[in-house]
């Protein structure tokens, strides 16, 4: 773990206005839950759209996307990455430091509102399940989107296609795609830790844990390899 890279990454992330523009999203989720709860609606009616649709369908992946693609992508875009790369550091140290920042920030920014919403919908146990699931999701999504920022110049766009088209649209129509859907792993793990009638799972626990591991480690290894071959292009003179 390289603490210098970690500190510079965290300061860059919190210094960007884009990051704070994301915070209304989790607040919206808690607000909707509180409103429904306050109006006396049954959790069976409001929890699936708020927790599954908004929370795990939008808040978690979008925060992970903007943060995960930004921890390295922003430095690639503005060229400051050169200062970090022109050092005798193993590339895995750089990737791991970036990944830790992305996972921790995403997990905290999503975990807290998830817990609050989970307690309102069912119980602290259910809230804890959502926190564990979201943290697992934060790791897998962050690793994926971090790798994307090294594979394409438009990581946010490609990431949105994955989240909205693959997980959101195809995941509902073609059940086969759910095995490759991080959202399904999150739901399965959350339901296992805090069982309730509110979440419908579609993959087994071993598949969810195994595939989340494959996503996280695979994407990280890929990112390390891509960073080793990082080229400066487009400004040759």
């Amino acid at each position, binding site marked *: 773990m390289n603490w210098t890279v970690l500190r510079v990454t965290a300061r860059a992330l919190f210094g960007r206005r884009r990051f704070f523009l994301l915070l209304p999203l989790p607040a919206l989720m808690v607000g909707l839950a509180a409103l429904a709860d306050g109006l006396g609606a049954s959790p069976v009616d409001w929890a699936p759209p708020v927790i599954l649709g908004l929370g795990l369908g939008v808040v978690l992946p979008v925060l992970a996307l903007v943060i995960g693609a930004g921890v390295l992508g922003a430095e690639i875009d503005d060229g400051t990455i050169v200062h970090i790369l*022109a050092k005798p*550091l193993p590339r895995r140290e750089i990737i791991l430091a970036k990944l830790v920042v992305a996972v921790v920030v995403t997990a905290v920014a999503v975990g807290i509102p998830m817990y609050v919403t989970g307690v309102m919908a069912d119980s602290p146990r259910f809230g804890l399940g959502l926190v564990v699931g979201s943290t697992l999701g934060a790791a897998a999504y962050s690793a994926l989107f971090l790798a994307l920022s090294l594979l394409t110049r438009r990581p946010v766009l490609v990431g949105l296609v994955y989240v909205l088209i693959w997980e959101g649209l195809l995941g509902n129509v073609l059940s086969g795609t759910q095995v490759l859907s991080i959202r399904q792993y999150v739901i399965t793990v959350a339901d296992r830790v805090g069982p309730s009638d509110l979440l419908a799972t579609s993959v087994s626990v071993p598949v969810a844990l195994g595939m989340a591991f494959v996503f996280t480690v695979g994407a990280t290894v890929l990112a390390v390899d891509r960073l080793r071959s990082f080229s400066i292009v487009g400004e040759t*003179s």
Partner: protein
Amino acid sequence: MSVELRAVSRWYGNVVAVNDITMSLAGGVTGLLGPNGAGKTTVLHMIAGFLAPSKGEVLVQGQPSWRNPSVYSGLGLVSEREAVHGFLTGWEFVLASAKLHRLRDPDAAARRAVELVEMAPAQARRIDTYSKGMRQRIRVAASLVHDPSVLLLDEPFNGMDPRQRLQMMDLLHAMGDEGRTVLFSSHILEEVEQVSGTVQVIVAGRLAASGDYRTIRRLMTNRPHVFTVRSSDDRRLGAVLMAEPSVNGVDLDPALGLTVRAGDYGTFTRTLPKLARAQRIRVERVLPADESLESVFTYLVGSS
């Protein structure tokens, strides 16, 4: 040799950016000279390990620089793009560099580097409040913090005022005198002339000339030149000039005057006033017609 390129080429699709360059650099300051778009940055990026050569080998202190981060312990790079982490202060930026290099005493190394570029008075300010020249200097400090034996700088004088230029030139001189290998790129002849004794001239991706600056300078001044000349009697002057061995050809245009193609710059410019005086012809104007840097470089390509 601390930097070696062996038959290095780099292409992007069908476009050849660098074509079969072989060069080796030892201690001292070397200027990488060439017009914009010649491939200087591509060469520097390949040496710095930020671009793979399509063909050939790039070695820094005997090791390939591509996919080999360990070369950076002896290599410093100041890229042309002036991007820095603007939210850091100058001091934090240089100190972070020292820490990333895992230096034993990062504070002392950062202090020394900041003092070397005379940025100590502004080190507590955020970099995004710096002027262009100050940013350039803090970037130089960050790339010197680990005392590298090879330093690469891409157009280091861009955006600097005359005083900062002089200071940077002194710094490069001092580093070269200490035996470090300093390679900097420039498209301005005078900059290179003032800083380095050795130059590598790149034109259209090829190494056009290489070696001592004075030799190349002579090659440049001895090349054929085209002049336009206006005088009190163009026709007679043209006839007299044609008899001169240093003149290869003369065109007479009533509107423009004479266009003279001289075989070599020095002899012609010495002969013209003598001839005119002997013939009692008043020379009103002598203009070199092809003094652009590109034409100098193009000539060098032809003669290399």
